[in-house]
């Protein structure tokens, strides 16, 4: 079968990094360790595992960071090579209780998938994203499908999945909607695990897939008082407003917008540039994960406020003096598991299915490419905002030219 395979190849990894630094994100793929190969399908590791044939598989920010050679060395022990990327997957199940059905993959490879019994405390509590054993057990290390040598990944014609990872897709949900469930679950977890109090002022930095889904999740599950979104591109701005942002501003305007929202004073340079707010907003969701966005978050979070890193950060140099002096809480929001809701504990994926359907998040899928055109697909994903797009996916349903969802509908 065909698969995009990411090898451990340090020279090509360095070349990818250089290319992405020189020419921009997405340009590392041509010289990097990713190759389209003819490979054998992965074997089923153990009982309880089934085959999954992807229909659509998304390209996410962490994939791009990997292809660009920008991902943190922190992950070195949490992946195994060679791996097939792709963890945002809707596909057809072959075998097991869901045989013949469509399913969305919950890609975290926690204790149950790894055959670890008893499970770690996090998995026992349903919080798979916080699994302590992702480098252990019967599988090669891999924090998720798409980073593990034993499972394959979504950017291929087939992979293996533990039955506990699969969520059946309702008939009414299109493939485009279903492929949005995984990124939406990340946003749902970010919103629900840090649920802002009623009336809280919230800023969401970034309006790519994660940012837009976070806006939708906050509006759907948390009802913050006022939600300001920073979005760079016109399509993103329109979607941010449609999904529930009260105000959408350019990234360069967000500090001033946060100041207006909080009604606070600001400290300015001699040239009048606002350096940071005296007070600020209650919660900042940083869906960018860059040093600049973290610095901006620190400039606008009020003393005692929260900064939630939703976008995957890397090695970052940032002045933490304001974090210390203002007692700001900085926390991450990774993956998913179970969320405490007023009606009781619910699976993050269950909530994500609900949100995808109600907010019509299939509209975020902007273009689909066959595996053979992976370089174009990656370039498109890296420039998605600029090109008026949001989520770029691989279409494994047939070998064809790239199609937009509307073309697909026709």
């Amino acid at each position, binding site marked *: 079968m065909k698969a995009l395979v990411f090898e451990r190849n340090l020279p090509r990894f360095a070349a990818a990094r250089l290319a992405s630094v020189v020419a921009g994100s997405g340009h590392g793929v041509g010289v990097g360790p990713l190759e389209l190969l003819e490979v054998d399908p992965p074997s089923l590791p153990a009982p309880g595992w089934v085959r999954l044939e992807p229909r659509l598989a998304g390209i996410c920010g962490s994939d791009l960071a990997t292809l660009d050679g920008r991902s943190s060395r922190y992950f070195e022990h949490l992946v195994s090579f060679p791996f097939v990327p792709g963890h945002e997957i809707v596909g057809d199940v072959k075998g097991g209780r869901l045989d013949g059905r469509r399913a969305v993959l919950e890609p975290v490879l926690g204790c149950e998938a790894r055959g670890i019994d008893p499970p770690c405390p996090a998995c026992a509590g349903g919080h798979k994203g916080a699994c302590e054993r992702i480098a252990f057990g019967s599988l090669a290390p891999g924090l998720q499908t798409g980073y593990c040598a034993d499972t394959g990944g979504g950017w291929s014609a087939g992979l293996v999945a533990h039955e506990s990872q699969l969520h059946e897709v309702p008939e009414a949900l299109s493939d485009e909607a279903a492929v949005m469930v995984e990124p939406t679950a990340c946003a749902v977890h970010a919103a629900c695990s840090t649920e802002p109090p009623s009336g809280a002022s919230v800023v969401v930095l970034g309006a790519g897939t994660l940012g837009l889904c976070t806006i939708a999740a906050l509006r759907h599950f948390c009802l913050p008082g006022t939600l300001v979104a920073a979005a760079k591109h016109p399509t993103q701005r329109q979607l941010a407003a449609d999904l529930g942002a009260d*105000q959408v*501003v*350019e990234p360069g*305007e967000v500090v*001033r*917008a946060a*100041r*207006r929202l909080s*009604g*606070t*004073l*600001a400290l*300015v340079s001699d*040239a*009048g*540039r*606002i350096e940071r707010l005296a007070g600020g907003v209650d919660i900042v969701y940083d869906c960018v994960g860059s040093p600049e966005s973290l610095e901006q978050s620190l400039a606008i979070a009020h003393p005692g406020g929260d900064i939630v890193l939703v976008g995957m950060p890397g090695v970052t140099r940032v002045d933490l003096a304001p974090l210390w002096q203002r007692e700001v809480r900085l926390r991450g929001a990774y993956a998913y598991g179970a969320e405490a809701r007023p009606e009781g504990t619910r699976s993050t994926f269950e909530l994500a299915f609900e949100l995808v359907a109600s907010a019509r998040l299939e509209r975020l899928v902007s273009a689909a490419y066959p595996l053979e055109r992976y370089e174009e697909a990656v370039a498109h994903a890296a420039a998605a905002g600029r090109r008026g797009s949001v989520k770029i996916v691989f279409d494994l349903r047939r070998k064809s030219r790239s199609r937009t969802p509307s073309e697909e509908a026709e």
Partner: protein
Amino acid sequence: MSPRPGFVLEVDRSTPQTLFWRGEGFGLERLPAGSRVLYGPEPLAALRDPDAAIRHALDHPLGDSAPLRSLLHAGMKLTIAFDDISLPLPPMKSPDVRQRVIEAVLDLAAEAGVDDVVLIAALALHRRMTDDELRHALGTRVFDAFAPHGLLVQHDAEDPANLVDLGQTDEGEDVELNKRAVESDLLVYVNINLVAMDGGHKSVATGLASYKSLKHHHNVRTMRASKSFMDRHHSQLHTSNWRMGKLIAEAGVKIFQIETTLNTDTFPPEMRFLQRREWEWTARDRASFFATSKALERTPPELARRIFHSVKAPHDLTSVQAGEVDAVHDRTLENVFRQQIVPVEGQTDILTMGLPYICPYNVNSIMNPILVACLGLGYFFNLYRGRPLVREGGVVIMSHPTPWAFNPVHHPSYIDFFEQVLSETTDMLEVESKYETAFATDPWYIHLYRTSYAYHGVHPFYMWYWCAHALEHVSKVIIVGGDRAAVRRLGFSPASTLADALEMASDVVGRDPSITHLHTPPLLLADVQ
């Protein structure tokens, strides 16, 4: 030879191209045959001895007022308020007329043994002046005598301890003024009346007031009913200020008003071609134009801005009158009209105007998009008596680069107004009802207004309201050569060239419109029959 009066030129095939300002630059445009170009009267002759004229005015006041020297006595509390950085435009060469007048007043005060004297820059909600700006306006002698002792202050409309509420007018308008000015035995107000809008009761009632007072006449309703605010008897802005003036007088505030008029000699000799009629340009004028305009094309905008803002106008004093407010102001208006009136027959379908680099609110600063709108639709559109130059439903075409740029020290709330308010709505009444109070009471803007050099938080609203009459009157506003995004944010239409703009205007006014160009400088006031 006496200066020639204003003139309306009808463009024909032999008419040379017309000069259009474009911010920190200018160019020549060929207007269609049949267009009219309005030129203001040539600058009036200067008073031969301005200091003597000032002393004479102080000794021979108008209206029901005694000579200034008889109003001064030892032990009294004297306050001298003066117009701020917004006047004149461009700032005038030294000595500034405020310096001349204030020195004369201080000489009389010294003769009378008055030792409790405070000078107040009548900022209203404008930014504070820097020491250099104050020194330029008042002269080194006055500045050094007062500033180090805390006797030269700038009106602070947000200092409750130094404001006093005088009550309400018959129309329920609050009058809250500077406490020192109100509680003085005599308040001398020193005006520069560059245009007909300036002076009269507006000087004290606006220049020394708080937001609580100002909001009664700086609002959409009032501005729409000021037709124009250069025509005091048809201006609700002035009617309201006059009501406040009456209340101020009834409260016992004794005002000695000094008003001065300047001629329209706007630029120094090397730039004088800018105020000459193009067909009268000499070879030297043409050479200056081409050299200057070409050099400016290659000059970075910030440098060009610095160069232009360093220009000092050779304005000369043409009259000075002092005494009782109404009598003084009536005489002042006669003198302003003598300098600026141009009779014009009938309105026009399209009014064109070239907007220069400066307006009252960006001296030594950036002309941001809101100020571009205000200069064109607030000030230039309102340079009329009788009827607007452009007919109802007509089109205004302005040329200006309209950069999406702001001075964050001077105009912090303008940035937010542009980013937040105008991105949501440009509708005057919605802007006013939904956002004004929040901006006016924002503690950060208040802090910057009081301690830095920032215009008050509400000021961009006022500049927007300044456009209210024009925007209600015309169908379309086009800016030639402006930043397209900024122009659209204002709700106007961008055009690359004047020809494109005229083509766009034809959608509204047809293929054969009448066109009138407002040529400034020199400043003029169209008396539209």
